[in-house]
């Protein structure tokens, strides 16, 4: 089928402002939007810049706004998004656009690093594995799936309003450790997250949950962190 891709383009070496450009490409309905973008890049306009790697929704490179909402281009099928044969593609919102669909991810990763995204356990490690019950393991399973694609954070109006807000992705990562029974720094992470730019800036908007390509219950995870802060108990 023939579709039209409307892409928001910006070349820092030429343009002052972003502008829209349209391309018509021949694709299969079951193709990914990423395939369509490649078709443009490889046969019509090589200057189109985007990040991508795995092409099946695992590496988290190609978050972008497709028809006005955040998705991974490699996980959005043409047949699901092409309305009247038109697909609009824009960079994700709230991070500085560097070129075309590429944004500067550094502020996003700075928030990630800020919440101590690593296991802290100061006891001397045992000879074999640390034991963990399947129930304790299941407690934080959902948030281990995060691929740091930024779909969630850049769909959050609270983040658009204030880029210093740590954002849902960082909270998801914090959740992964706070509720890991092997970890000992949950309290410190919770303290960081209770600062003005922490979890309290989450307005329970749910855009993040809708945007997460990994199906993580992001708002729920944030809510659980708030609950731990509210009740003083990590459970």
């Amino acid at each position: 089928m023939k579709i039209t891709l409307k892409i928001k383009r910006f070349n820092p070496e030429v343009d002052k402002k972003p502008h829209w450009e349209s391309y018509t490409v021949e694709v299969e309905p079951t193709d990914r939007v990423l395939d369509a973008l490649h078709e443009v890049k490889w046969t019509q306009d090589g200057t189109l810049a985007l990040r991508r790697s795995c092409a099946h929704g695992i590496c988290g490179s190609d978050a972008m706004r497709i028809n006005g909402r955040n998705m991974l281009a490699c996980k959005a099928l043409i047949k699901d998004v092409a309305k009247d044969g038109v697909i609009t593609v824009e960079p994700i919102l709230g991070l500085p656009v560097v070129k075309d669909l590429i944004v500067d991810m550094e502020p996003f990763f700075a928030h990630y690093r800020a919440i101590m995204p690593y296991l802290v356990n100061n006891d001397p490690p045992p000879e074999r594995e640390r034991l963990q019950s399947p129930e304790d393991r299941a407690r934080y399973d959902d948030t281990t799936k995060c691929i740091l694609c930024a779909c969630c954070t850049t769909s959050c109006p609270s983040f658009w309003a204030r880029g210093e807000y740590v954002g849902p992705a960082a909270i998801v990562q914090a959740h992964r450790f706070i509720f890991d029974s092997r970890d000992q720094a949950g309290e410190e992470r919770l303290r960081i997250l209770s600062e003005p730019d922490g979890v309290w800036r989450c307005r329970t908007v749910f855009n993040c949950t809708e945007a997460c390509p990994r199906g993580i219950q992001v708002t729920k995870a944030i809510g659980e962190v708030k609950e731990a802060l509210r009740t003083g108990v990590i459970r």
Partner: protein
Amino acid sequence: MLRPLIVSFREGVAYRAKGNLLWLLHRISGLGIVVFLGFHIFGMSMAAFNPALHERALELYKTPPFAIGELLLAFLLIFHAVNGTRIAILELRPQLWEKQELATRLSLIITALLTAPTLAIMAYKSISHFLAH
């Protein structure tokens, strides 16, 4: 400096999800009510401190533009109350987080159900007032 404002109002509104529109409306309604409340308390307290001023304010309230503003206020207040209740309940009752779609739909329905008769009665009262004078 205004970039965050621009992003959340111009581009954010275009973001295709329900949540951010509700957020924006909740924010606008909250601020709207704050502004109204300021004038309202001030005006009412004038009944005690400066009745003449209070009387002038009441006259003003009875003009058509204010009647329309009042309708808007009613909607904003009801929306803010219902939506705020949804947020508060969801956040205080973790078990319900998975039911957010339903909660959103319910709160919109309740808002509509409460707003419709309220606006109707208020509009009726205003119109009959204007007809009588």
